[in-house]
């Protein structure tokens, strides 16, 4: 069990990084990675929401959808859960923790359409994790996302100073950079398997 959890963490953060290997959350990855500060903010918001959303959808899947034989409704159920959860988190944070709300507030609405959240919730069900594995997997996947985002932001801050062809500027060079990053992350594949 212990080794299994360690393997889940290692695979989710490094070997199967959700952005660089599974292509989940590429839109925010390209959109919010201009500065390290904002990418950290976005990353924290994703850690928060992804963990909550994955746990809640695990509970809904196992205690509502399976007993009622409604598994085919999981897409609708999960996206509704995620959308309302984001709203709820926004309201609760605004009331109880204005500082945190100030830091994460602007990223929260963006998260509803972040396919990484729904993707991890679905992958988690597919992998058949139990509740402890679910929590660990969700946190690790979100940390992997944050790490990839911050690394990319660091590279892009430097890239802005580089003199390059206008054709490559913006998304094109960011994608090629992501490709090289993904290539280096491939080195982690096979070190540890689930």
């Amino acid at each position, binding site marked *: 069990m212990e080794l299994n959890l360690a393997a889940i963490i290692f695979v989710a953060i490094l070997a199967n990084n959700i952005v660089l290997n599974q292509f989940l959350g590429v839109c925010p990855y390209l959109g919010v990675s201009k500065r390290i500060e904002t990418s950290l903010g976005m990353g924290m918001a994703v850690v928060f929401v992804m963990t909550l959303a994955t746990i809640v959808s695990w509970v809904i899947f196992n205690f509502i959808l399976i007993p009622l034989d409604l598994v085919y409704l999981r897409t*609708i159920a999960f996206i509704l859960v995620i959308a309302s959860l984001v709203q709820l988190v926004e309201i609760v944070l605004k009331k109880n923790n204005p500082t945190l709300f100030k830091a994460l507030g602007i990223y929260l609405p963006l998260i509803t359409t972040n396919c990484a959240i729904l993707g991890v919730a679905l992958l988690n069900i597919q992998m058949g994790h139990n509740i402890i594995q679910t929590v660990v997997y969700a946190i690790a996947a979100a940390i992997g996302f944050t790490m990839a985002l911050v690394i990319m932001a660091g590279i892009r801050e430097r890239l802005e100073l580089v003199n390059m062809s206008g054709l490559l500027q913006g998304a094109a060079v960011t994608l*090629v950079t992501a490709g090289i990053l993904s290539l280096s992350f491939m080195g982690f594949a096979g070190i540890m398997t689930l």
Partner: protein
Amino acid sequence: MTTLTQEFSKGIIKQNPVFVQLLGMCPILAVTITATNGFGMGIASMFVLLSSNIVVSFIRNVVPPRVRIPAYILVIATFVTITDLVLNAFLPSLHAALGIFIPLIVVNCMIMGRAEGFARKNTLGRSVIDALGMGIGFTLALTILGIVRELLGAGSIFGANIMGSSFEPMALFASPPGAFIALGILLAIFNYFYRKFGVQ
């Protein structure tokens, strides 16, 4: 007022969801290992986009503005579930190849973007034409990237061998890093042509 032809063609070239608006990046990168998968994903997304645009345009005067986003998500999710079930029943191999990215059509920002940005303000006819144009533009982009990656990564196009037996496949383009790099270079090439012909 734009003409209907302009409304249709803008999604294919001028406002191509992939090459110009950079929307729906996740499925584009993930499923384009082969041209067939890319084309299949494009058609599936186009079906969802068309159906949701029709419904959203239909209910645009009924839904209160405050709850419009959840309402649109529900509409889109319903059509995605239909697509998921239909593909599973009739094209199981494509369903297996696209995997998790079929349910993830729900969060494809292109579809939400068209509902929010176009269908809720336009008539049924215009919304249909807009969805067809955008859907074709999206399918075209997915198929082009699929062709490039399949040609370089496996030496074939739509499963038909092109390069002959002496060609050594470049495994990079069949793997995740290859997807990023191929799309980045394609974007740069499209930027070149867009500038040359002054489209933007």
